[in-house]
């Protein structure tokens, strides 16, 4: 089953290279993501039954446990929604003459390579191969960020590849130190094997492990958008085409955070207490939340605002991982799920808005509820959701996290986060709500929804986040708890 999962994108890429007909390409894209989704669903069932799924190919490199399958499911669901959305989006772009038909092929080839590399990062247990896959995601997505070939896109793509490559190189240094710390403990074939490192964690050299952790957090944190390494994120996420922004924001940040979480599991097990990693993660998390808050208040471009909101939510996840109690880890994983769905929904809707109004500036958009009724409503409610309003999913996960912070008696962090979240809500409300009311004075913009498949995808995501906000189904709850157990492993 795992092979189907990983082989389908590769086959899809090959097919895209060969086939030139546009309609056939749309069909391949949607069917490929559907097959991936079915494979992932079957894998999830396997993991829930057996706990761990391992394959012995290539020396036992593939390994899927509850944590991997959780993040993988997010990837797959958002991938399916994005590919449904892309069909309508690309049609609109062709209609407006912003793209040549040949570019669609490049778009799909790169997108499926991107999805393949992300899935590869989540299904291996060798940290080295995980690193290679995460580096490959940067390479696969650079041209997607610079897809429109304008001055701003190229600047964003250059910043993206340079900053992320340097960050990933620093992460490689961390992985080298990780291997160095295990040099007397493990044999050659077991180097950088996550399960081996986890089982022998107590015997690893602790000072080298600290160095390794710092470098890995800085390195993967660059990819995850933690401040102060976040400078590429607003540019890249706002300049990319909207479905790609949804993938970048909703999925890629999670993959990078997954790498950090795997390392934290080893380090905390080895050091015996979570104080060292906790301090570092909380510092980065709070820095990210504060940075996001400051920049959200002064934004003029709605896609950049959404990007800064991603930074903020990644900061919240980092703080939750830093606290490292069972409840906070549960909250962090739940937050990953909710944030991904909400953010991708918002980015996909913003794609519709961009295509309708042809501008990225907030001040130029008026009367969205009349012109794009469904998208507008979903966008408005999505903004409420991302700012942490009940009854949506983000509220419940943030609530869990703040409860965990107060449970651990670190009051000042909890109060700080609550205050900053309120500030962010005010900022978003003040900036964005102008877009919804008023009348649109420009004559070229006709009322009516475009991109019908996209609207369907957006509404499906919206339903999902409402459902997870109201109640969490039991299988999901068990899966998250199991994943949390893998991370904490009995340590508190």
């Amino acid at each position, binding site marked *: 089953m795992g092979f189907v999962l990983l082989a389908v994108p590769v086959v899809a890429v090959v097919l895209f290279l060969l086939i030139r007909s546009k309609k056939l390409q749309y069909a391949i894209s949607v069917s490929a993501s559907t097959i991936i989704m079915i494979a992932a669903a079957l894998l999830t069932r396997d993991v829930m039954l057996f706990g761990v799924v391992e394959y012995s190919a290539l020396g036992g490199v593939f390994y899927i446990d509850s944590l991997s399958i959780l993040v993988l499911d997010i990837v797959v669901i958002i991938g399916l929604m994005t590919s449904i959305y892309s069909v309508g989006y690309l049609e609109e772009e062709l209609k407006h003459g912003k793209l040549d038909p040949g570019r669609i092929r490049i778009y799909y080839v790169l997108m499926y390579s991107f999805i393949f590399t992300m899935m590869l990062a989540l299904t291996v247990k060798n940290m080295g191969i995980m690193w290679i896959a995460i580096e490959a995601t940067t390479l696969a997505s650079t041209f997607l960020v610079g897809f429109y070939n304008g001055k701003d896109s190229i600047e964003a793509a*250059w910043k993206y590849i340079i900053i992320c490559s340097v960050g990933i190189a620093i992460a490689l240094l961390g992985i080298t130190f990780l291997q160095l710390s295990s040099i007397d403990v493990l044999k050659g074939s077991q180097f950088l094997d996550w399960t081996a490192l986890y089982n022998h964690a107590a015997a690893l050299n602790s000072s080298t492990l600290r160095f390794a952790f710092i470098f890995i957090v800085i390195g993967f944190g660059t990819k995850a958008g933690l401040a102060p390494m976040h400078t590429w994120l607003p540019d890249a996420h706002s300049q990319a085409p909207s479905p790609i922004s949804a993938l970048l924001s909703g999925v890629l940040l999670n993959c990078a955070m997954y790498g950090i979480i795997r390392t934290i599991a080893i380090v905390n097990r080895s050091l015996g207490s979570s104080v060292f990693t906790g301090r570092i993660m909380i510092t980065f998390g709070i820095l990210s939340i504060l940075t996001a808050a400051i920049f959200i208040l002064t934004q003029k471009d709605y896609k950049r605002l959404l990007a800064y909101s991603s930074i903020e939510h990644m900061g919240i996840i980092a703080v939750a991982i830093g606290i490292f109690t069972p409840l906070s880890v549960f909250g962090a994983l739940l937050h990953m799920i909710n944030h991904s769905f909400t953010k991708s929904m918002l980015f996909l809707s913003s794609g519709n808005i961009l295509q309708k109004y042809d501008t990225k500036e907030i001040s130029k958009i008026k009367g969205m509820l009349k012109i794009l009724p469904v998208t507008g409503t979903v966008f408005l409610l999505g903004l409420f959701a991302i700012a942490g309003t009940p009854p949506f999913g983000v509220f419940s996960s943030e609530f869990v996290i703040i409860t965990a912070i107060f449970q651990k008696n670190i009051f000042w962090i909890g109060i700080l986060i609550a205050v900053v979240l309120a500030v962010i809500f005010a900022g978003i409300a003040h900036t964005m709500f102008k877009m919804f009311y008023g009348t649109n004075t420009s004559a070229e913009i006709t009322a009516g929804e475009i991109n019908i498949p996209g609207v369907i995808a957006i509404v499906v995501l919206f339903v999902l986040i409402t459902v997870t906000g109201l109640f969490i189904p039991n299988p999901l709850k068990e899966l998250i708890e199991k994943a949390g157990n893998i991370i904490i492993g009995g340590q508190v």
Partner: protein
Amino acid sequence: MSDYLDVLSVLILLSSFILMANKRTKSHIRTFRIQAAMIALAAGIMGIDSLYKEGQFDLLVVCAVIIAIKVIYIPHLLKKVDANVEYKVEKDFFLNIPILIIGCCFIVVFTYFSISTSEGINAGTLNMRVVNSVSLILIGLFFMISRKKAIGQIVGFLVIENGIFVTAMFATQGMPFIVDMGMFIDLLSAVMILGIMVFKINEKFKSVDINKLKNLRG
């Protein structure tokens, strides 16, 4: 043999200083080539040694791959990019060269003091080789942020990767083979993509001065 490796690690560090002191892009590429050749030599020496002791080919294959990619192909790519790009930026760096070189010296001293105060990496000569390699990484980073031309940033990134590879080699006798190969393929694709990006920057902005990429702020 460990004498030769010590000398090579010092020479690699020395080549990074020479890289810092150069003013022209062609010299950067040439110095990078010499550095990659010395790293390949070190990998080759360690590979022959491991062949005698344990009968493993890994490091020798890695040495051959380094020669093919970093000594031959990547400088060739960079030279092609360099030749097709107009030159309007004369002064390539923000501070003058003696200050940059003194900065590199501070980096080496700083690396020495931070690594020597942590147990676990201390083991006599292993210590100095690791200090040399880690300072190579930091000097590469410093090089990257002190240059204005896009190609300078690419060379800085390549020096960082060189440094990480040398650290892995000296500290842990090399990473697992698949990881090394994956690293090289990644590096190659990264350089190709960066080269294409430099072309696009040159087309749109009519220069490769990174300072001109200032539109997206805030």
